[in-house]
């Protein structure tokens, strides 16, 4: 494996996951919001069946950057918390594992909204 192969693999995986979503938008009636939800939930599922870590080994950021990675973080958080705290972990693990991302997104949205507003769309 050349030293750039992992970059190519990240590119291909990220591109492939985007293509699936694009096809769902173009060929079915699925709205972007539904697709995001579907990706997060399938991320949890993929992690749950134990397929995520092997995929991450191969594709790196190619699977962690798409929202599937967000779902997988929830899955990992839940799993680790359940191992540590038992059933209560099922309710705390998901949010605590993704707290940084959610907080940064919300706070940055809030801060920018203080300084600027939506501009008129142009053709």
């Amino acid at each position: 494996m050349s030293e750039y192969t992992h970059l190519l693999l990240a590119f291909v995986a990220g591109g492939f996951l985007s293509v699936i979503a694009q096809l769902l938008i173009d060929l079915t009636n699925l709205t972007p919001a539904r697709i995001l939800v579907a990706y997060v939930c399938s991320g949890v599922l993929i992690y749950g069946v134990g397929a995520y870590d092997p995929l991450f080994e191969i594709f790196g950021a190619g699977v962690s950057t798409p929202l599937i990675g967000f779902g997988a973080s929830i899955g990992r958080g839940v799993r680790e918390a359940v191992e540590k705290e038992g059933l209560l972990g099922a309710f705390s693990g998901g949010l605590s594992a993704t707290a940084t991302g959610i907080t940064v997104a919300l706070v940055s949205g809030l801060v920018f909204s203080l300084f600027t507003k939506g501009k008129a769309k142009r053709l």
Partner: protein
Amino acid sequence: MDIYTNEGKKEIIKKFTPKTKVLKNTLLAFIFGGLISLGAELLREAYIYFGMSEKDALTLVGVTLILLASLLTALGLFDRIARYAGAGTLVPITGFSNSVTSQALDAKSEGLILGVGAKIFTVAGPVILYGIASGVLYGIIYFIYLYIIR
């Protein structure tokens, strides 16, 4: 042409509605989605190279992409890129960040509490809710497997 029944009208609409350019859209989605993931991989390795743990590096990559997408949204550039990128910018964490910031910017005119505060969750809400809910479901199943079955 049958213009007096629902079925007839549906057929006419189908016949005359132009198809989306699926090939072009998927190609662009592939390139943009791929490039963002490639950039993320480079960032991740750079963070590790500068001495971060694997786990922290991954979190920081997410934070970087979220901030970048949020900034581009605030500058009014994100929607111009997404017009071409389609799912290529939607599917990476950038799409989540854009949906949060764009709602916040837009809802500003209805005030900070019920405007920004409530509407910021319009798209982020479903993602977080169903992500967390499926996490809980997984947690319960895993708990049963771990403590009861084994």
